[in-house]
């Protein structure tokens, strides 16, 4: 008997994460998005591994070849295999998006958490800083700043630089959201309990308040990643992001600014553009699915 009762309580005790998961699984569009994203991530990881070509392999005899059985997506002016570069570029593009979103999430939730918890002057100052950064016109500033700093940085470190830049300029939206949530959470009973238990401010914010805003943070991180991938692509398209020889989808599409490549060698610039679109679509679907799954008001 006791066993049966145990089972019943177990069945009832479905946490909010399980509810969200069940709802996410039922949302067919979101599952398609998530699967597509997983396929893209797996292929950028493994295609370069199983490719018979090397990323630094030049073969001038084989240059500017249209897609064929040996080179499925043809070769570029230096005879490099475009398929390999496409997936190597994907590694960088997705990594930049992921890291930029992480920087923005860490900054945004920290600032929002501190501002919301302490209130008063701290809140005023932090939110004013957020407002200033929010008001900076994103594209012109990012372009000017990268132009200013790019010449001092090697091709590889440009990648890290672009990540930081996008992350640092895009946290204020999340900070506002988290702050608003914390303002209302702060007044709830469980926070009085932490007060009585004498828990430190730091762990009150990090262990008790922020986890309650996690749903917002996850959704914002996913959608932010999609945005960061687009921003990186735009910057690299203008030649102000990650620059060759390090491939990214953005600087591969940039080749289309050369008239000859644009008109006669579509295999160089169409595939990376399509990959950007597929990746961003899949992340957006995933993000919207997560938002619906976490939203208690959404009933479908």
């Amino acid at each position, binding site marked *: 008997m006791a066993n049966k009762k145990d089972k019943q309580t177990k069945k009832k005790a479905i946490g909010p994460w399980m509810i969200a998961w069940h709802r996410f699984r039922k949302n067919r569009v979101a599952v398609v998005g998530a699967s597509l994203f997983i396929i893209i991530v797996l292929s950028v990881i493994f295609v370069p591994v199983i490719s018979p070509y090397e990323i630094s392999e030049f073969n001038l005899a084989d240059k500017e070849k249209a897609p064929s059985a040996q080179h499925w997506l043809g070769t570029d002016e230096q005879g490099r295999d475009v398929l390999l570069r496409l997936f190597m570029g994907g590694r960088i593009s997705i990594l930049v998006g992921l890291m930029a979103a992480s920087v923005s999430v860490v900054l945004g939730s920290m600032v929002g958490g501190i501002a919301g918890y302490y209130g008063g002057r701290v809140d005023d100052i932090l939110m004013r800083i957020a407002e200033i950064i929010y008001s*900076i*016109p994103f594209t012109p500033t990012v372009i*000017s*700043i990268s132009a*200013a*700093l790019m010449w001092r940085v090697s091709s590889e470190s440009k990648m890290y630089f672009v990540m930081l830049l996008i992350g640092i300029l895009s946290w204020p939206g999340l900070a506002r959201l988290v702050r608003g949530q914390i303002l209302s959470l702060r007044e709830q009973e469980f926070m009085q309990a932490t007060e009585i238990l004498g828990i430190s401010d730091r762990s009150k914010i990090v262990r008790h308040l922020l986890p309650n805003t996690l749903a917002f943070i996850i959704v914002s991180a996913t959608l932010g990643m999609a945005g960061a991938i*687009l921003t990186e692509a735009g910057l690299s398209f203008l030649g102000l992001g990650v620059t060759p020889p390090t491939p990214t989808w953005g600087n591969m599409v940039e080749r289309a600014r050369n008239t000859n490549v644009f008109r006669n060698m579509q295999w160089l610039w169409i595939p990376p553009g399509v990959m950007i*679109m597929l990746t961003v*679509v899949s992340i957006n679907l995933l993000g919207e699915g997560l938002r619906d799954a976490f939203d208690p008001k959404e009933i479908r």
Partner: protein
Amino acid sequence: MLKYILRRLLHLIPVLLIITIILFAMLEIMPGDPVNAYLGIGSNATVEQQQQIREMLGLDEPVHIRYMKWLGRTLTGDFGTSYKYRKPVADVIGTYIWNSFYLNVVAMIFAFLIAIPVGIKSAVKKYGLFDNFWTVFSLTGVSMPSFFFALILIFFIAIPSKWFPLNGMRTTIFLAKGYDSFGQEVLDVLKHMILPVTVVTIASLASLTRYVRNSVIEVINQDYIRTARSKGLAEKVVIYKHAFRNALLPIVTLLGMYIPGLFGGSILLETVFIWPGIGHVLFTSIGDRDYSMLMAANTFYALLMLIGNLLSDVSYALVDPRVRVK
């Protein structure tokens, strides 16, 4: 209300100051000597001459003094002289703003004219075939890099069909010999506009249709709509008279927010289409080290952004009096 607007305007001042300081500092660490940019490529000026120019441009002073001077001049409406165009920056910006504006205004009119009926119809038949089509459309729209879409459009439609000019704003022959009549000029510019306007319209449609749809859905769920239905009004009257009028408020708010943005051009699209707008000017002045131009263009964009935010807050306050009290 006036007090609220005044207070918000006062808030803008420190924000704008800090943004200009950040931008000024950024240009400071930008490599390349503006004196060389001033002289142009292939000049054989001696070291003394270069020094003279440096003094003439005021570049020999420390950075904070130069910032204060820049600020002082800017406040009196003098944005300095563009090294590249050899004209006052204000004149250059004044010319190119309008090029961006024409493009944006036409696209915005199309976008609103399409988005409003589409949004209403999607909201009324939520999750229907029509709604699903536009959902996919707007998802693809927001996920497609605009520059890639522009390239695809040029490659697959404009080049094979030879119907429209691929880039620029005017035909080269007319640039050399001038237009015969004003009508001819308008027609020529309109022809060049077709491709960029299509791209900008579709890009704005992607988010606009969703926005209209969601605001109409929100209104349809209200109690007074149920009342209107239950008192037996025709569905058409319910939707267009009761629901749409109320949904119009957030849409008008959005329109107000768009207005400042009309004067700023998209850097990426103006670069792809070589459209001589303000975004294109900003991008080329980076390569040319045209500091006064860059500084002014960036400040201009910051101002547009701030005014846009202000307008949206003010219109919210107009709609919702509770906002003002805070």
